[in-house]
């Protein structure tokens, strides 16, 4: 035992334990996010509970089980809840009951002793709605304008699905009308206003110009009225049908089909159906717009915003990072300046991201953006165009933030290219710049790629600086749309990381939003870990490739 201690074996085992601990933490964390994120989409079984309260009142509750917990009986007794004598702990279930507008809380804890019956009735239906969250209940009848369909679920459901399909088509039509024609008219009207204001500022506003603007406005307004009329007609059509559902209070509630997004009966679904539904739910999470203050629906604008901003950043950071790395490795003489540049790179890498945010806000947004507004957009005053946080400034800020990543990675790639190749090229009469363009950069391109991927991964996960320079909780429009000039760099955007912060911490109903945050987290982690894996893969490939050149 003494020898065993002296050999240092316990210490070695402790260090080994540290590695195990780190691995558990890493893998545990990733699996936690994956599990919680993916189960969010799984169609859970819906139960119909019958509760018998201690005072003899019987209550019906319909919902899906979210969590199970045990509560010390004493605590319940202190709160005045009756618990049978001799019971130490009481099981409880957190049930999502939906039907938000009809009950006080859409989540409630049920104590297991009070549950006298629990049935997963096959006819229980889940309605996803565009307002007030899910609705749970039994389908009672279908009201198709003039015709009323009654009967059991099997007879109503096919007709209901047909009716929903019809509403969906109308919705799509209305949406296209709204997003294309109407939004384009609004955009043009705003442009006319700005053009007129511009002429006014420049003192060139003649009565002729005013008349022409008025004429344009009139035409647009006429068009607008036509579109609006047809939009209202479509909306009117949409609200024709409704479905009557019996909810947990036993009352019949009529749900208009225009408010429904999806209907499924999870208790009837086979495993294959459930998997298909699960995949479809994930897909719609990625491609749908958020609803209800981001706590329901998809995250498409956030994904789009993240990708757009990161791509813009990549376009900015790559040339500068690569040039700086080439300077450091190929051109700079070893001297004081080079040393300072290196220290600058190291320090840039270590500066906290929020400091970049502060810098970006002050310098890019207020100084640069403010000057651009003064020079180019005097007609928009007092509302800022570039002088307020936006996607361009976010991309620029993150470009500075990720500059060191690209520099370090590119330099590493450059240092792996054997000297002999450069010397060979120079000996054959090429100038240094030709050597650079024709030999070195092509060979270093995988390293540049690696740096770029790492930079993108870093930028995709950064939130703190973006909170200052351009990200918003809800952006009305994407940075790209059908209105000229198509790419609107001054617009604010949504970001997946900020979406997580916002929904998880700023939303009014955190309990309801939490699973969605796990889902967004899973999405973000997948993207970032994937990007990193790619970078590591490229790096390893690169090392292997040049190993053969090194001897």
């Amino acid at each position: 035992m003494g020898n065993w201690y002296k050999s240092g074996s316990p210490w070695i085992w402790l260090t080994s334990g540290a590695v195990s601990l780190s691995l558990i933490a890493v893998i545990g964390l990733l699996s936690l996010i994956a599990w919680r994120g993916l189960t969010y989409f799984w169609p859970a079984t819906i139960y119909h509970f019958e509760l018998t309260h201690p005072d003899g009142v019987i209550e019906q509750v319909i919902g899906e089980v979210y969590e199970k917990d045990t509560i010390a009986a004493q605590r319940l007794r202190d709160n005045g809840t009756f618990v049978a004598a001799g019971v130490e702990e009481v099981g409880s279930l957190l049930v999502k009951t939906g039907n938000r507008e009809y009950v006080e809380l859409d989540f409630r804890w049920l104590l297991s002793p009070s549950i006298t019956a629990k049935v997963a009735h096959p006819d229980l239906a889940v309605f996803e709605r565009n307002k007030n969250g899910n609705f749970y209940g039994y389908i009672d009848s279908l009201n198709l304008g003039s015709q009323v369909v009654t009967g059991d679920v099997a007879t109503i459901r096919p007709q209901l699905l047909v009716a929903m399909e019809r509403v969906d088509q109308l919705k799509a039509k209305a949406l296209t009308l709204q997003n294309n024609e109407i939004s384009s008219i609004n955009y043009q009207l705003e442009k006319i206003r700005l053009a007129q204001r511009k002429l006014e500022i420049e003192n060139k506003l003649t009565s002729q110009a005013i008349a022409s603007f008025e004429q344009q406005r009139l035409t647009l307004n006429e068009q607008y009225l036509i579109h609006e009329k047809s939009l209202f007609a479509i909306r009117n059509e949409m609200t024709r049908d409704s479905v009557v559902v019996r909810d947990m209070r036993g009352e019949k509630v009529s749900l208009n089909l225009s408010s429904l997004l999806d209907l499924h009966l999870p208790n009837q679904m086979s495993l294959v159906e459930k998997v298909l539904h699960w995949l479809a739910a994930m897909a719609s999470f990625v491609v749908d717009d958020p609803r209800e203050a981001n706590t329901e629906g998809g995250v498409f604008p956030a994904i789009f915003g993240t990708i757009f901003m990161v791509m813009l950043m990549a376009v900015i950071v790559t040339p500068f990072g690569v040039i700086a790395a080439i300077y450091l490795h190929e051109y700079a003489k070893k001297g004081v300046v080079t040393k300072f540049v290196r220290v600058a790179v190291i320090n840039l890498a270590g500066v906290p991201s929020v400091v970049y945010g502060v810098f970006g806000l002050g310098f890019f947004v207020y100084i640069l953006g403010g000057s651009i507004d003064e020079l180019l957009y005097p007609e928009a005053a007092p509302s800022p165009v570039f002088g307020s946080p936006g996607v361009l400034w976010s991309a620029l800020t993150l470009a500075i933030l990720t500059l060191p990543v690209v520099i370090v990675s590119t330099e590493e790639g450059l240092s792996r290219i054997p000297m002999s190749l450069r010397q060979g090229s120079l000996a054959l009469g090429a100038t240094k710049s030709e050597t650079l363009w024709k030999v070195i950069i092509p060979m270093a391109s995988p390293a540049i790629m690696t740096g770029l991927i790492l930079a993108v991964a870093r930028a995709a996960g950064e939130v703190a600086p973006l909170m200052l320079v351009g990200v918003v909780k809800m952006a009305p429009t994407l940075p790209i749309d059908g209105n000229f000039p198509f790419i609107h760099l001054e617009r604010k955007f949504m970001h997946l990381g900020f979406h997580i912060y916002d929904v998880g911490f700023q939303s009014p109903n955190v309990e309801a939003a939490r699973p969605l945050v796990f889902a967004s987290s899973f999405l973000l982690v997948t993207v970032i870990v994937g990007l990193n894996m790619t970078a590591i893969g490229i790096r390893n490939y690169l090392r292997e490739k040049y190993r053969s050149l090194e001897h």
Partner: protein
Amino acid sequence: MPSASLAANSPIRQLKDRLTRYSITLGGLMVLMTLLMIFGYLLYVVEPIFRSAKIDLSQEQPVASQAIAFGSDELNEIGYFVDRQAIVNFYPLGKDSPAATQVTLPISGAVVSDSKSGATLALGLNNGRVLLAQPSFSLDFSSGTRQISADVRFPLSEPELLIDLQQKPLDKIALQIDEEQTSVVALTSDQRLLLTRLSAEENMMTEELEWVSEQLEFNNTPEIISEILLTPDQRLLFIRSGNQLYVYDLLSDEFDSPLQLLDINQVNADVTTIALLSGGSSILVGNSNGVISQWFEVNGERGRRLTKIREFNVDGSVKQIETEPSRKTFAVLNETGQVSLFHSTSEAQLLSYQLKINAQALRFSPRNNGMIILADEQINFYHLENEHPEVSWSALWQEVWYEGYPEPDYVWQSTSASDEFEPKLSLVPISFGTIKAALFAMLFAVPIAIAGAIYTAYFMPSRLRKVVKPTVETMEALPTVILGFLAGLWLAPIVEDNLPFVFLLIILIPVAIVLTALAYHYLPAALRSNINEEYSVVFLIPVVLLVAYGCMWLSPIIENGLMAGDARTFISTELGIGFDQRNALVVGLAMGFAVIPTIFSITEDAIFSVPKHLSNGSLALGATRWQTLVGVVLLTASPGIFSAVMMGLGRAVGETMIVLMATGNTPIMDWNIFEGMRSLSANIAVEMPESEVNSTHYRVLFLAAFVLFIFTFFFNTIAELVRQRLREKYGSL
């Protein structure tokens, strides 16, 4: 045939080469410039808060008759003065200002005294009446250009108000007026002190405001009344009687018996004047020896008492103290004609300016960017630049005694709902929070990261190492917003519900690992040869998980047995320690998790790159692997490990999202692990979007960013220097 452009001395090729060289050099230097630009820009924004005030004369206005009141409009375009005949003279302050005009106030007697409240003037007359008037300025754009015009309006329904029914001259008056209430305290020539209070009430029929008046007479007053001051809330009345101060509560039933009576003069000096600081909580006392003392009420053993807080000094006797209407800045005029500007809470002397005229009185312009000084036969207007008086070195980094606080303290409280609020901008609590969060994170991260790196670099078979290292390094890329979210919404409730579990884990995991090692040691040789010790990492995983499960099971038992069923209540009530759900423990765990990969990766590299011949030599001389590690490898790699810890610290200091999401963000100063903190970075993220550009708050937040920048600059530079030394050292080996 070779083309001309490929000839060895082709000028185009040479030009291209040179162009590439220049542009690349320029690009490289741009990195350096970027860093300098960030540094420079932060300083550029921060710098104005440390500037002292500037004053310069902009206009001189001769005054024929003696002025009793004077001032200017908000834009410093029109000045005015009121003379003994109650004529308001408006005069231009700038080139574009309108020409001089006069308005005669309708007075029924001679003016004997005056007072002001905000922009409202009160003139006490010799017939027991008071006239209330307000010079008012209006902007008009109707003619296409901007035009400013001046007039006088009367805030009450009648210009004059009868104060003394006996119609005696009002020798001294004090006025406070707001939209709902007006109070006038007047001293008549026969030494009666009268309080007149008017309340605005809406007439039910006409829906017009009517002023309902109420009059009170003091039964006993000090014999000598030198000055009368009324607080803006119209509750407290201060009467100076020579060197004594009487404080009355006007809202109490015994309004005429003083709440407090105290001597306010400095030793060997007499009081020359008193003034109320904005907000009316502080009283400033000027002395004949040039000391100005600030007093406010402090809650003590004997209730709320006026207490002397701090002193300011000027040369010579104090003639007048004038306070800014909205900030805690005040100007002092002394008998030699010197104007000094002070800010009370920041204890800063902002300005000291010797006037060339025989100054009688001074006023601030309404926006605090001008100062008007009345001399014998002229009124001078001075431009004043004093944007950020509330920030000074002592206000940022030292304990400050704020109004209403029982003692000097470090406080960060930048905004509040009320207008009277004074921003409290001490960087100490948030710097403390930053350091606290970073230290708890390091406490958790350093042992695990370094121990893990040692094992990975030195003991682990390379096949396993190839998997383990990238896995741990993947964590570095994990967005901190996700860690913060998990810490705040998943970990914090778990830790709260299972406190004993967390502490049991910390104790039991090392014990379990050592016990496993011991068990392995005593395993029968046959079995042992089947289980390779090198893969201990793999079979320690279930051990750790098992221990965690065991702790989870033990936790409620301990909680019920030792902590009366609920750890949280036990800690907060029995031990008397504050407990927040989102506390330093959660932050430490989450942020520790974020810095583990940084420290792990650099340490691992440092240990792995220790030349093999060093450890081989040691092993060959008979040292065990552990001895070699401690005696040779770690020693050689120690600068690298130090550098790793520094990098980790740098990252922990600057981390924003985890601290933002996993703490309550309360700026408290307490090392308690169960309470939260507010860090510099989180503070910036929370407050920056709401702060007004170029305001003091905005600049102080930039200063916070600058401090953060310096913090990390310091840690990173140390780390880099040490690493460079390490590289040189290995170069020689």
